[in-house]
């Protein structure tokens, strides 16, 4: 008899907790994340879409075309295409290798972040964006501009 009342008290507590909703925990609030309307919280270390970072002031890419990320990738989905530019160092013209094009195939990527760990300049980073769906196979292959600027995602709120 009393366990019936205890059970009823528990559901009542959950009900009142859901109505007052202080915390997203069962008994004190509601677990549900209304996904398309609300961006769900993912962990700060979540491995999502890749991004090539740029220097905040000069807006030059931080990538030095060292190819370490492509070597580290277990899926071979990164292709770093360098090019040589002429620079003057101490009065003498020298050749410097810079990044020309960066191809990243997100359909093959398994988001292990080995490339992020391998990058010496903290240029390649996996962000928290998980909405990577496209309408064509080709849309999965990202080029340098997409990697640097990010992609337009559809917004369902406002």
């Amino acid at each position: 008899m009393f366990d019936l009342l205890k059970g009823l008290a528990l559901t009542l507590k959950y009900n009142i907790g859901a109505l007052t909703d202080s915390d997203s925990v069962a008994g004190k609030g509601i677990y549900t994340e209304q996904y398309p309307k609300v961006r769900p919280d993912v962990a700060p270390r979540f491995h999502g879409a890749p991004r090539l970072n740029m220097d905040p002031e000069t807006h030059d890419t931080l990538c030095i075309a060292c190819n370490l990320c492509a070597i580290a990738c277990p899926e071979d989905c990164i292709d770093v295409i360098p090019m040589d530019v002429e620079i003057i160092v101490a009065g003498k013209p020298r050749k410097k290798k810079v990044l020309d094009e960066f191809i990243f195939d997100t359909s093959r990527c398994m988001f292990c972040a080995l490339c992020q760990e391998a990058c010496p300049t903290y240029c390649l980073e996996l962000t928290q964006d998980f909405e990577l769906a496209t309408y064509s196979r080709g849309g999965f292959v990202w080029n340098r501009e997409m990697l640097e600027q990010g992609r337009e995602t559809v917004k369902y709120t406002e």
Partner: protein
Amino acid sequence: MLLFAPINFIDQLLLKAGLDAATINHVIWPFIQIGLLVTVVALWVAYATYLERKISAFMQARLGPMRVGPWGLLQPIADGIKLLTKEDFIPEKADRWIFFFAPYIAVASAFIVFSVIPFGPDWAVVTDINIGVLFVLAVSSVGVLALILAGWSSNSKYSLLGALRSSAQMISYEVAMGLSLIGALMFARTLSLSGIVTAQQTDAIWFVVYQPVGFLIFLVSGIAENNRAPFDLPEAESELVAGFHTEYSGFRWSLFFMAEYAAMVIVSAVAVTLYLGGWYFPLVYRLTEARGYHNLYVVVSLLVFITKVLIVLYLYFWLRWTLPRFRYDQLMDIGWKWLIPSALINIALSGLSIFLLQALDGWQGIKLIDSLSQGLNLTAYGKALMIVFGLLGLLITGALLARINWRSRDFNLKSQRRTIRTVNLPKGQPAVPVAAKG
């Protein structure tokens, strides 16, 4: 008041159209009331499903319907449209006409009862029959017929078994329901539902405090009558697919669904009327009618009634989403071995307590009874004593029930404990039955 101008306006219009006052009051207005009632009840039943989904969701720390309209408020309408547009098929070997009529019988029997329930004092009740309680019980019993017809006509084993189980359950609990009402009727001394509420009003008491046992029995048997959890084995999806409405789809199924929810609202309304004071609430009369605001009085009483019914409905949802369901034999046990005896004991004890009250009246100068003309009007002492009798009745009923059911298998678990014999089992050897040693 401006709020009630439409009523007076319609009255004036009808009078001008040449109808006399008697016709208007007894023919036209009841039709308008009936139309309003059916609409309101249909909407109420639809939104009861919405409320159930929301309340069950909150109890489970989730949100319930949120997408269809703001806060999911248009969900019942979306459900209705979906059900209307489903294919309407009748199984091939099913009995066509009975299959066709069964849902309508269920819905009709559920909806007809609303015409006698007193939603409020003056014009808020469609009709006031002298034998209201009997009418309610009789008409809601017709629902069982619809159940059996549906199960039989579906020509399917699940439906038939579900219908038989369900109807057996319903008729078992109807006995307990009817008997438990007698307790409250002893105090009201009238079968008319409006009269019962008026008795509670003049007595300024809710009968639940005199009759806690009766209230509990009525609620439990009402929940079982409606095939609601924890008594919902006939509808248990894991066991009988969907019971008697397995073969129904689309709108026919939704009629059964509506009948079930309407029956829930009816049982809540009858429980509120008989035990929880109906539309009576302590200060309402003094604040409205006594100052001349008649229509306001009716509207406030209506709101009071609706609030109480909503609270009892919440109890329905609360029980459904908390408790696991009863096994069928436990269910029938409860109906016949626990509720009916306790209802009978309740009647006997109520009669005894009224008799004792009348006998003790005037003892040592304490006056217990005010008058016996309209119901049982008691003084404050009388009420206190009656409440004490009610609680005592709870204890006595519990003790007697335990005594009656002492040997029943599920109840007395202690007597089922047997001494445990350890079998001589060498390690690693298969268990071999030991020859019984004496």
